[in-house]
């Protein structure tokens, strides 16, 4: 030990000539730990890009629906209801099955992001619509329009700032949803395929009970998913407090 005392007991190292695998190896002998870290790139960017896309779609549609009301609002709301009443997983499956098998991994990656955000925007659109409906009757909004402020000005100066904190929170909370969605799709073999590594792809290896029983460390990517989802929830909470210092 420390080059002084000869010793054969090992606390935290491997046999001479061996390599240290912190989380063990998979069936092909690849290091699970480094694959989890590598997979984070894909899993996190899918979440971020997906949320960004659904944010834009949801915000535009929600503001439009809430501010103009009337029949466009009705059409949009019924559309959202239809979209939401589909069971998500079969819908994801159908959409990702529609992606051509000949696509390169990068194209598949972008396609999956699109599929996820295509379904993800409905919740945000509804929240934005609800907020706008409530806010546009507020006295200060009425006062602004009495003063002659234009529609865009009211929207950008009075309506949007009043619910940015709300949007931030729902976005950070939507992020885990995206990550989970990607994980679920890849786990089922419909999402990303092996040359690309994501947490879902890694978990696919842990699909059968025997594998889990004999090699429990293959579940390590699930741990990464849990930690990430929790972390984003905490970030959301923190941002809400930070974004609303003027709360009455």
């Amino acid at each position, binding site marked *: 030990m420390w080059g002084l005392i000869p010793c054969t007991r090992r606390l935290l190292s491997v046999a001479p000539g061996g390599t240290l695998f912190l989380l063990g190896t998979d069936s092909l002998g690849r290091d699970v730990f480094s694959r989890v870290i590598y997979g984070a790139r894909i899993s996190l960017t899918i979440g971020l890009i997906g949320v960004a896309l659904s944010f834009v779609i949801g915000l535009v549609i929600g503001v439009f629906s809430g501010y103009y009301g009337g029949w466009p609002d009705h059409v949009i709301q019924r559309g959202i209801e239809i979209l939401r009443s589909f069971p998500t997983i079969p819908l994801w499956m159908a959409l990702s099955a529609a992606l051509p098998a000949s696509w390169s991994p990068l194209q598949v990656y972008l396609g999956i992001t699109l599929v996820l955000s295509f379904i993800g925007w409905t919740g945000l659109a509804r929240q934005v619509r609800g907020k706008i409906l409530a806010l546009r009757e507020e006295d200060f909004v009425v006062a602004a329009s009495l*003063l002659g402020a234009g529609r865009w000005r009211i929207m950008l100066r009075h309506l949007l700032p009043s619910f940015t904190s709300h949007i931030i929170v729902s976005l950070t909370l939507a992020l885990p949803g995206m990550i989970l969605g990607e994980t679920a799709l890849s786990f089922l073999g419909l999402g990303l395929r092996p040359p690309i590594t994501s947490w879902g792809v890694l978990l696919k290896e842990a699909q059968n009970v025997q594998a889990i029983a004999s090699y429990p460390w293959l579940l390590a990517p699930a741990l990464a998913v849990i930690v990430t989802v929790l972390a984003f929830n905490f970030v959301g909470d923190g941002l809400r407090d930070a974004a609303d210092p003027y709360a009455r």
Partner: protein
Amino acid sequence: MNPPATNHALLTVTDLVKHFPIRKGVFSRVSGAVRAVDGVSFSIPKGKTLSLVGESGSGKTTTGKMILRLIEPTSGAIRFDGIDVAALPKPELRALRRRMQFIFQDPYGSLNPRMTVYAVLAEALAAHNLAPRGKRRARVLELMDLVGLPPESADRYPNEFSGGQRQRIGIARALAVEPDLIVADEPVSALDVSIQAQILNLMEDLQDRLGLTYLFIGHDLSVVQHISDYVAVMYLGRIVEMGSAETVFQHPVHPYTKALLSAVPVPDPRGGKQRIILTGDVPSPINPPSGCFFHPRCPDRQNACTSTAQSLVEVGSEHCVACHVHAAPGSISSIG
């Protein structure tokens, strides 16, 4: 039924009606209407204050909001300085609203919590291009000075102010576009009594300095007496008595006005004033009583009251009353 002093009126309202439809069932059939305002007429001479008083639900606020077209009238005419407001297309409405402003009841909900005082006031100036960019700050400070806000508070947010100061900001915002008419919807009812007087005095002071015309909506009669030149008493969407403040407060004619005035507390404990206690509740404006809306609660009810409604009849100079018993043509002698 010409209201007082029509010849140099800034605002004249004729037969203003607002019925809110009640929709029922799957196909939203209109099954009835809430008769919020039911044929209201009055006029305000330039530089004067008319108060609309009445219980909650008597249509005061709805009337005030219709004048600015915040609520679209069902029928009736609104003439502001010769312009027919009710028939004005939207783009021209914007220009008109520069001359008519609104002070809100709730000083908390009426200010955007995310905008500083400066931003709130500058927005009004920017919207109508009233001050070039370079002079905006100076103009904002001038406005703040006008309503008695210290200049160093320009960059504070509304939550740093008290209710009374917030109402001052609301007044400054209304004044920013240099209006002629201000509709004040119970501007002091959300404030402490000690602050109420300050705000009322400020409003009177501004009226003298800027020649403003006020439509003051209120339910607190002592407040109304303090500020008004003319008073119109509303009951269930109709005006039952209208006249100069002095006449209405000293010599009320309509039984409802009398009951209302008798409910005002008197500071003198020995001033043995008899209170008129009305029985029953205000009837529903969905299904108002026949004839005079007040007859089910009226102590002086006669047969005619239940069948036909009496319109406003002039009972004295600048004094109109809608009552069969006390203001029927020929009963003018009954003015007390």
